[in-house]
């Protein structure tokens, strides 16, 4: 997924702003990553390089910390955020198959965002409705007993929704 120049610029400005509040102690790296992630929703390469320079560490080390934790994203979240539950119950009920179905359908891997920015894919731990396993949460809506065919259906209904709002908008 490509970032626009505009996005890179904002990312740089925001990262610099956040870094101003921290001294060069490398122990501050994680709080900085968290704040950038909170502000932008993700941490792009330009931000990583800026942090590396600030803390005087190799950029690849920032990347190492960032990829170690699940809470950080490398790409901007999509308009629709698909969260696949990987909790114990969902895992036992085939969450992996569901994950594969989403990945195949959207043609992206977990943690990524589709080229058109419509969908992003994430794995989460138990979302608290194990009886409905396997569970997928799209934006705030919970979908239970998901099967690979349901994945197709869900995608279709989101595309339909989108079309309707588009048509509605032109009227």
């Amino acid at each position, binding site marked *: 997924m490509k970032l626009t120049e505009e996005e890179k610029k904002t990312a740089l400005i925001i990262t610099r702003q956040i870094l101003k509040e921290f001294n060069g102690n490398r122990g501050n790296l994680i709080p900085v990553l968290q704040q950038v992630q909170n502000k932008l929703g993700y941490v792009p390469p330009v931000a990583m390089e800026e942090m590396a320079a600030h803390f005087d560490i190799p950029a*690849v*080390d920032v990347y*190492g910390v960032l990829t170690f934790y699940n809470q950080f994203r490398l790409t901007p979240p999509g308009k629709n955020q698909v969260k696949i539950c990987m909790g114990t119950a969902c895992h036992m009920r085939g969450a992996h198959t569901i994950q594969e179905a989403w990945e195949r359908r959207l043609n992206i891997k977990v943690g990524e965002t589709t080229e058109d920015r419509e969908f992003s894919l994430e794995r989460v731990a138990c979302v608290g409705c194990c009886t409905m396993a396997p569970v997928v949460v799209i934006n705030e809506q919970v979908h239970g007993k998901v099967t690979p065919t349901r994945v197709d259906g869900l995608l279709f209904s989101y595309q339909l929704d989108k079309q309707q709002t588009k048509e509605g908008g032109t009227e």
Partner: protein
Amino acid sequence: MEVTITIDGKQIKARKGTMLLWAALDNGIYIPHLCAAREETESPPASCRLCFVEVEGYPAPVTACTLPVAEGMVVNTSSERVNRLVAAGFELIMSNHRLDCKNCPANGNCELQRIAKARKLRLKPKNLPVLHRDLPVDDSAENIVYDPSKCVLCGRCIRACRNHGQSVVGFARRGFERVVTTCGDVPLGESGCDSCGECVKACPVGAMSLKKK
């Protein structure tokens, strides 16, 4: 200051504070090891778990790369407990190492082969299933080929790269997904790597190799 210690019944002298692993190696006593580096005196990573030895007075085997020598230390480099630990550690490493000795550039000069020979271990795991990560081979750099499926995550190339004044490679991700990679996983050829080849020299296996001319 020098101290005298006994390893496998042999008396050796070593500088006080040296890690036991180096004292043994310097005196021709082989202890399997992958992740240790001489220059790392502060806190060795001690992540490969292959350098276990038995030391008198210690209730359990200890990693030789983290134990500074002290006067009168009596060490046994293999005991049943040690062998069990080393065998298990080795098998874990081999369970996701792509074994292809015949076509491997490190064949005959591979630390894994050496360990297997020294400790009479099999290269192919017999208790654990083999799980390959099937990561693509990166041959984008001018004269380095990097095959992550052969990497044992010892971290030697990372150190070598940094000692050379570069910081192209590092560790990323976690658990089974852990890899040595560049920032943003860009191919080596686009990472600013100048193909100095230090990582190749440092790699104990065949993960980093020189391109065949």
